[in-house]
């Protein structure tokens, strides 16, 4: 009977894990979504972003032919002007935000995207909110499977315990009967309220709560997977991934300072004085850079007294630029309502991104949301790791070149640091600084030691990081 149950439970577990990766087009849908939709639609499919959350999109369009949905994706604004009821409803809800046109997407591709949307919408979120750290990275589905196994095991053990208790009851009844006493038949409630059971319950609850308390206290202030919305939809995937710009081109002080440094707007301008429109975002994001530093994209000149410009001046200039580009890219004879709405929309984006709370100015630095917040009492030096240790950025920051929007990859907890220091080998022979560790050199030579780790040269000592 027991064996049968185990088989039953494990087959459920297996089935569940297969189900997660069923349809063949999801992968394509994901790629298409990231390339085309992710700029406006939330990747978790549940929350609104610039555009609405896409979960349940098929149900919302179920009353109309499937082709209407395809058409909406390709030429949404046309459907609004044509007066399609669902389109008008959406426009009323979301105006003045316009959905970009995607005339290039095939029906199959749109189906793939829809599959991906459903897939994500029906799954648990993979990027938990700050403070809800998960073990390891990106292990959403894995931990789900484990849960099933544990639940199954717990059930089996509970049944086993119950069965044992019945056996004990029966056995004691047999002795009672043999001794001439009447057998006692305890109800389930009676069994569960025995001293032993209650004590076990109290013990278990204490243990679980204690574990959870310590575990949560340790994680307090940590924010692995923290992925805040940034003022500019800057894509590391595009810059570091597709365009293969070296990390240290922008984060240039990583090799010389303790800070890796978020680049100043002037660094952006090294390229963006030429690249004035984004492949995906058009004018909406890059214009923010211009507005920060005071670059006139129409004349290709920096504005000399930009500090003294009024908001109105700035608004006029960049609205003109956005409008001009809209007309050019859509080959329009003159500005239309949709264009005006886009201009207004993008201008508001600029204001939102740049307006400084303290001085109320639009021009000036871009206030990025800081993702990696190391505790104040921990000293970390990028130069030590990047220039001396030659640790790849990805080792701590994860596959940034694949991140559309950056999130915190590592825990940044002390245990995580320590583990790496224990394992990482020091560039011992290549750096003359380490010549002074004569004993280690001798041991390496004699074969008594196969490597020198950071821990061996004092990398676990308190005052390497805390002073």
């Amino acid at each position, binding site marked *: 009977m027991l064996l049968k149950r185990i088989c039953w439970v494990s087959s459920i577990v297996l089935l569940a894990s297969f189900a997660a990766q069923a349809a063949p087009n999801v992968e394509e849908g994901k790629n298409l979504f990231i390339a085309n939709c992710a700029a406006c639609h939330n990747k978790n499919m549940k929350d609104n972003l610039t555009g609405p959350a896409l979960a349940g999109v098929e149900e919302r369009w179920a009353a109309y032919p499937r082709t209407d949905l395809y058409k909406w994706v390709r030429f949404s604004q046309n459907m609004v002007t044509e007066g399609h009821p669902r389109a008008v409803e959406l426009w009323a809800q979301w105006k003045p935000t316009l959905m970009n046109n995607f005339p290039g997407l095939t029906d199959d591709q749109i189906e793939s995207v829809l599959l991906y949307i459903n897939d994500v919408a029906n799954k648990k979120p993979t990027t938990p909110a700050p403070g809800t750290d998960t073990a390891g990275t990106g292990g959403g589905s894995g931990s789900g499977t484990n849960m099933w196994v544990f639940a199954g095991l717990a059930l089996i053990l509970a049944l086993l315990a119950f069965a044992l208790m019945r056996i004990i009851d029966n056995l004691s009844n047999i002795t009672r009967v043999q001794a001439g006493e009447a057998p006692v038949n305890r109800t389930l409630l009676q069994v569960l309220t025995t001293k032993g059971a209650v004590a076990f319950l109290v013990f278990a609850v204490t243990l679980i709560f204690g574990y959870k308390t310590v575990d949560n206290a340790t994680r307090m202030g940590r924010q692995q997977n923290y992925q805040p919305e940034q003022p500019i939809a800057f894509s590391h995937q595009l810059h570091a991934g597709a365009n293969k710009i070296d990390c240290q081109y922008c984060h240039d002080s990583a090799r010389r300072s303790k800070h890796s440094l978020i680049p100043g707007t002037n660094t952006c301008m090294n390229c963006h004085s030429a690249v004035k429109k984004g492949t995906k975002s058009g004018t909406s994001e890059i214009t923010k850079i211009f507005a920060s530093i005071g670059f006139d994209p129409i004349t290709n000149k920096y504005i000399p007294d930009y500090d003294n410009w009024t908001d109105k001046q700035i608004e006029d200039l960049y609205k003109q630029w956005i409008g001009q580009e809209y007309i050019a890219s859509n080959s329009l004879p003159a500005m239309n309502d949709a264009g005006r709405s886009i201009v207004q929309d993008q201008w508001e984006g600029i204001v939102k991104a740049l307006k400084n709370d303290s001085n109320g100015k639009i021009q000036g*630095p871009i206030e990025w*949301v*800081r993702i990696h917040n190391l505790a104040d009492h921990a000293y970390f030096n990028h130069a030590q790791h990047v220039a*001396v240790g030659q640790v790849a950025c990805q080792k701590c920051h994860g596959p940034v070149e694949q991140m559309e929007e950056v999130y915190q990859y590592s825990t940044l907890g002390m245990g995580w640091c320590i583990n790496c220091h224990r394992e990482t080998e020091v560039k011992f022979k290549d750096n003359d*600084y380490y010549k*002074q560790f004569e004993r280690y050199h001798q041991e390496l030579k004699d074969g008594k030691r196969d490597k020198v780790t950071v821990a061996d040269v004092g990398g676990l*000592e308190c005052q*390497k990081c805390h002073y």
Partner: protein
Amino acid sequence: MINMHHDNGIWVSTEDLNREESFLQSAEKEFSVENMAETDGQWAASRRDFLKLMGFGLGAATLAASCEIPVKKAIPYVTKPDSIVPGVANYFASSFVNGSDYCSILVKTREGRPIKIEGNSLSSITAGGTSARAQAMVLSLYDTRRIQSAGTVENGAVSKLSWQDLDNKVKGQLQLGGNIRLITNTIISPTAKKALAEFTAKYPNTRVVSYDPVSSAALLAANEQCFGIRGIPSYKFGEADVILSFDADFLGTWVSPIEFARAYASKRKIKSVQGATMSRHYQVESHVSLSGSNADTRIQIKPSEMGAAICALHNEVAALTGGSSISGPALSDKAKAALKKAAADLVTARGKSLVVCGSNNVMEQVIVNKINDLLGNINTTIDFSVLNNTRQGDERDMARLIGEMNAGQVALAIVWGANPAYELPNADKFKEAFAKVNTRISFSGVMDETTALCSHAAPAHHQLEAWGDAEPKTGHYSLIQPTIAPLFDTRQAEHSLLEWAESANLNRDDEQPYYQYLKSHWANDLRAMQSKYNTGAAFWDMSLHDGVFENPAGPRTVAFNSGVSLNSAGVTQPASGAVEISFYETVNIGNGQYAHNPWLQEMPDPVNRTVWGNYLCVPIEWDGNKKMNGWMNLNDGDNVEVEVNGKKLTCTVVRTFGQAPGTVSIALGGGRESGGCGVGYGVNVNPWLPMEGGMIQYFAKAAKVEATGTVDKHFACVQHHHTMGLAATDAKGNTINADEQVLAYQGSLTDRSVIFQANLKELPKLAEKLAEFHQHSDHLNTQTLYQDNVEYFAAGVKWGMYVDLNSCIGCGACQVACVSENNVPVVGKKEVARHHEMTWLRIDRYFYGDLENPKVVYQPMMCQHCDNAPCENVCPVNATNHSMEGLNQMAYNRCIGTRYCANNCPYKVRRFNWLDYTTADTWPANEERLFRVDGADVPFYADNLVRMVMNPDVTVRSRGVIEKCSFCIQRIQEGKLTAKKENRAILDNDVRSACQTACPTGAIVFGNLNNPDSAVNKAAAGVGDLAYQVLEEINVRPGVKYSAKIHNS
């Protein structure tokens, strides 16, 4: 000479000598529990407190409930300057100039804010040394009480005017044509003088009136008489074999102390035991100055006997050199005999000796000049080819000005840098006369006593915000450059002058007009003096980079004017009977100029070890039996009423060894009335200073002292805090270990070894004794259960320090540097009185020799980074532990505050954060209110402006944790990283501790003990057995070595 038996002959105080119960108790307690619950009536909870606590409670509850992490922003530059890499410090060469003080400095800035002062080794004057005053200047930049805009002054407050309005008003007044007077300290800036010249040209009725906070007028006048030069020559202490100083504190405050200290110490260092030589130093004085405490022989005289002593020395020297004698006033036989011996030494070292005098009596200075002439020191150790320009003021000019002002002849006065309403003895008369001036303008950056009397404030930049230059010695030019944009709406003083002079040379359209003005002066006028750089731009860039441009004049010989007659009637005539009082300048507060700097206020006076105020030093007398008592049986902290010239003040007593019998003394600079956090500490003794021939005398012949029966309950003297290693005698007369006696068991060792000292003549004997001691210690230390950990430390670097007690003069620059580097909080007088001072590095003062006129040893004491550290193995949470680099590490976030480590530390160098000193306590009763923000007084570090001075590489500690010297771990890590990045071995210069870089005499050497060629190893090896570890015999294996103190008497 009175000598009591005391092991090593070393003692710290009367209580120590007398083995008083109170002392033993005090030594027992690392932290005083007296006044612990004392609240000064501030305890009663106010509405604010209630709201604060409620707010805190709610806040804590909310925090605990949600644990939301606040969103933090990362804000990059728009256009990142090439020179700034966030996280990497930039250094700018500049100068510290204040009144008579000068130091060439490097300003360390982080992300555009100055945080630390270092010495500039390119200057031949200061050669990389600094003073406590220079170190502390960075804090005064971030003073919340600075004047924040130009305006009119009403009731001690500035009501804002725009600079243009002010300029119009002032120009209107200037153009009326009345007499204009500028009241300044000595101006040593060539470009400022040029600006002044333009101003004077525009308004010919202008006259500049200069005086110095502490006058050298007599010296200048005497030099003019004797050599035809009204100037101060270069004194070459580094070439003098015998030095005699009449009350000139040349190591602490007199003329150019950083320069003198370095030169002096170079002749005092013991380089090897065999054939060791050092200069001999006599000091003739009544109170114990920093120089006097370092002297080989102190000759005690009463202040009024100065003239007699100078005449006596003159006659002795004249007798030996064939000069004619003069008839001077009578002097005690004891002093006479001592001076006779000194004269013999001086004559033996003819041409290589030096007599200096701090007196402000012209005839006395003339006779001293004659003595130097007789000794052949003129043109050798006294060099007139390069003059020291830092003191050119003359208070007689001020007297004239007061007359003019009283007569209504002055229409407009500008006060620049000076504070006559406080500094002058006749400040009352000055105030009265000053009120008669129609327009009174102050350039002062703070609302000091004089500015409060002005009609207009035109606040100048702080020096770290300003451009400028200095010529401290002729031909030695030094630049001042801004290291931060002005924090407030202030303006360069020179700019104001040029603006008001409507100068055509000031380009008002420029962002920094005075910068262009200064640059053009350098690029044109100064460039012409050299030939290395052809263009003005190249010369300017070089000078700005180096901070100094030195073009000393060629040799110039002078001769003593034979026409000068020595008239002993002109010297001070001894008074009889009455108690005399002398007034002196301390190394930290000056004549009050630095009273508003908390770092300097909390730096103990080197000699009497008091903080936050000035105290009346009274002599200590031997009762003829076995006890040392304070004069009049006064005790430390007793309040007395002192009457001088009919003016009474209540002072607090500190008993001082070496104070001449029949005299008392008190420092200048206390009792400031306005301008900053120094208000309310000490008493203002300037009104007591008598004038003699128009010159300020720094002593009074009669003082009446009466006990009041009250005590200063916050008497703050750090001498008895954190004591260690004291020997004493028990009731049976046996030598015992005081610590052991009062603390019960602490190491079971009796012969403690903290200080070793000897006469130069007995040097080989001391070396022998120390060799035996080392051997004995070795023997003891090998009887250990601990395994030898030599191999553990052999790999890589092992850090260590060597402190040469013979070079250490006790000036305290290292202590302030440490405070500045390591974010050490200021705790205020009340907290210091409770033993709560937080300084990581203290300078212990020990006495030895004659009980009534002892010699002094200064010992910088910081964490010794013991390899067998007693603190480490008592920590229950392993918050303090050892690194393989030999560092005793302290992890603040692990510390739970048991203080076991502090109890177990034999050196008493661990400090506990009793209160939240760095972030302001929730309860106002706890901390002294030192700063003022938005009209409310707040504790130190509690406002964002002062916090800008903090070193971002050092954690700010919170309440309840222990902290201590880390050997500047942040500098170590930075230095190692530099070496690693450059792929090379680590060098001595990569890592220099803050105390090391601050030291003007090179007494502190830090480095890698594993490298046999490192400076620290070489320095310690040089003195052989003279190098010892404090408490070497207790097997804690400290990482710091000291050298024995040698005197040459």
